[in-house]
Every structure is written in structure tokens, then in C-alpha cells.
């Protein structure tokens, strides 16, 4: 695990400097930021959780759930539903934890699990979502912004929630999560060209809503 390796590297640095000396060999590595420490703790918790330690998984949940929830909210545009999908994502993460090999950051892996859980849900419940949203589905993407009252979508968060499902998925995955067009297309099961068109449409709708 990279967290353990980092701890070992830190220990080696201390030995090499000798007793009483504080001259760091690698100054940048010596001054661990809060983020570095959090990453290291997370890596250790992941390693423990992979052995079946549920307390360690609870620790992972506490450190990651707000980011996971944010991703769910943005993909779904519905805070209540996002809470259910956040739970679902963590349950799936627990089930698939053995497949995490530490090749990428754990948070990257967890976000991928979350995105896949939400996309899968949206695929299964698409007709219901369209009915609930009264026609804001993929086939009925509006040409003009969806908000009625000026200023309602001054907030990007609110504007994202008003995007049509497919445009919102592509925008969140690409512009917020940083996935590429081919990764996004693969996750959503669409053509790369469709991903590009939906991103363009999403940005245009957002610009109009936030103007």
C-alpha cells in the first residue's frame, strides 16, 4: 500500500539525518501537510478494511462520505435520492473492496464505484425519473434554460440540478470529476461524439441559466 510505503520513507529519512539533526533530505516530503496525513490515514484504513475490518471502513466512510454525497447530488439532481445512492455506493465499495489494488488513489476508485452505482440506478429507473421530472428526460432536452424565475440559478449547484439527465451526467463526470470523453462515454454506454455534444449542450444551458 502506498500509505505504508510513505510511512517507511519518512522513517528512513529520520534515520539518515542522524540523532539530534533535523536537516531534511527531502524538505517537501518532511513537512507533511494535513492532506498528506489524511491520505496516509485513509490508505491505512483501506488496508485494514480490506481484511474485513468494519471499524476501518466506518473511518473511510467518515472521511469520504461528503464527497461521495456531493457527486451523487450532482449526478442525480435530487438530495434525498442522493442519500440513498450514497449508501448504495458505500455498500458496493465494501463488496468490491478486494478489487482495489492501490494503483490509483482510493478516492478516485471510490468515485468511480459511486458514479457507476448512480448511472446504473439512472439506467434502471429512467422512466420513473422522467415521469417525476415531467419531461426533462434525454429525449426532451430543452433548447432554452429550464428555470422560470431570474436569479434562481445564480448558483451553479442549482443550475446543474436543472440540467437534463444525460447532459448533467456528462457535465458532472467531465467538468467536475475530470473524466475524459472516452472514459465518460464508456461509463454511460454512449458514443464519444454523443458525450461531446452533451457536454457542449450542458455548458450552453448552464451559461444561459447563470447569465
Amino acid at each position: 500500500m502506498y500509505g505504508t510505503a510513505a510511512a517507511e520513507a519518512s522513517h528512513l529519512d529520520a534515520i539518515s539525518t542522524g540523532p539530534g539533526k533535523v536537516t531534511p533530505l527531502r524538505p517537501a516530503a518532511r513537512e507533511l501537510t494535513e492532506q498528506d496525513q489524511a491520505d496516509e490515514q485513509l490508505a491505512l484504513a483501506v488496508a485494514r478494511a480490506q481484511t474485513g475490518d468494519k471499524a476501518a471502513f466506518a473511518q473511510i466512510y467518515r472521511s469520504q462520505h461528503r464527497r461521495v454525497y456531493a457527486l451523487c447530488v450532482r449526478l442525480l439532481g435530487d438530495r434525498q435520492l442522493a442519500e440513498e445512492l450514497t449508501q448504495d455506493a458505500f455498500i458496493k465499495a465494501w463488496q468490491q473492496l478486494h478489487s482495489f489494488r492501490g494503483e490509483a488513489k482510493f478516492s478516485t476508485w471510490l468515485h468511480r464505484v459511486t458514479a457507476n452505482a448512480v448511472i446504473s440506478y439512472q439506467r434502471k429507473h429512467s422512466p420513473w425519473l422522467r415521469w417525476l421530472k415531467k419531461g426533462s428526460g434525454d429525449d426532451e432536452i430543452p433548447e432554452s434554460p429550464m428555470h422560470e424565475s431570474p436569479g434562481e440559478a445564480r448558483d451553479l449547484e442549482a443550475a446543474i440540478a436543472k440540467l437534463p439527465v444525460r447532459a448533467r451526467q456528462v457535465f458532472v463526470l467531465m467538468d467536475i470529476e475530470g473524466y475524459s470523453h472516452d472514459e465518460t462515454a464508456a461509463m454511460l454506454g454512449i458514443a464519444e461524439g454523443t458525450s461531446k455534444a452533451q457536454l457542449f449542450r450542458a455548458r450552453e444551458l448552464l451559461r444561459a441559466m447563470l447569465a
Partner: protein
Amino acid sequence: MNQPVNSEQPEWLRKQLDTLSPELSPSRDLWPDIAQQINRQPKQRWLPMAVAASVLVSALSGVFTWQMYQQRQSEQAIANAERLLQQIESPYSQARVSYAEQWPTMRANLDPETAAIVERNLQIIGEAHKELVKALQKQPDDPALQQLMRQTLAKEIEVYQVAENASRVSI
């Protein structure tokens, strides 16, 4: 979270994305439900596997039982045929064994031409006997085959008797 591809994002969007918080807080504690689910998992994962295993065992035992049944049926049929053959051959077997043992002596007392005719007849009867054994193993209940077998065995005895009489005349 991956790093967004900022170079392709328009300026207005980058500014907006900077205002976006990386974290949001749910309205309630979501952990208790998650904990409940992951604590229940081992049972859920174990049960379908157990069901699948029991179905597999049942299916395999079914196949095994069927094969055993088929084999037993086949063995039973062969045993029945063997018993039937013994019943048919029983009245003739003592005479056949006796004549088979005497045949070298009888042949020596016969002129070669007669001995050759007798041997050719015995050979034909022997071939017929083998074919009838095979046929009766497949269809042990066929009365025509049973009758043919009796006639064949009787004919064999008859040939030996003729040969015996001829050898006495020759002496």
C-alpha cells in the same frame, strides 16, 4: 476525484467551478443503514451459494441415480438373458459336453470325408448358436428365438449321434 481538464473549459465556467464545494453534507447520518447492510452481507452471500450448491448436488445425484438405474437395468437384462440361456441349454449341456469330449475318438474312426462333413455341420451349428446367444441377450422374451435355440442345440446333438453311429459302422 480526477483533475478536471481545465484547459478546455471556458473562463466563465472555470470561475463557476471554483465556487463549487467539493463536499456536501447529507441531511441525516447514513452510516447506520450502511453498517446494517454490510453486517448482513455474509448471510446474503452465503445463502445463494448454498442454494446453488444444494441444487448442484441434487442434480448430480439425480444424474448419478439415473445412470445407476440404467446400469442396473442393463445388468438385470444381461442376468435375465444368462439365466434363460442356462434354462434352455440345460437339457442338452451334458450330452454336448460328452460328445465334444468323444469327438476326437469318433473322428479318428470315421473316414476323412465323413469327418469333414460332420465338422462342417458342427461349425455351422456353432455359428448359429453364437448368433442366437447374442439375439437372446437383446430379446430374451422372444419365444421364436428360444425355440430356434432349442432346435439348434438338438441339431448339434443329432449330428453327434449320426457321427457316433457312423463311427461304429466304420469300426
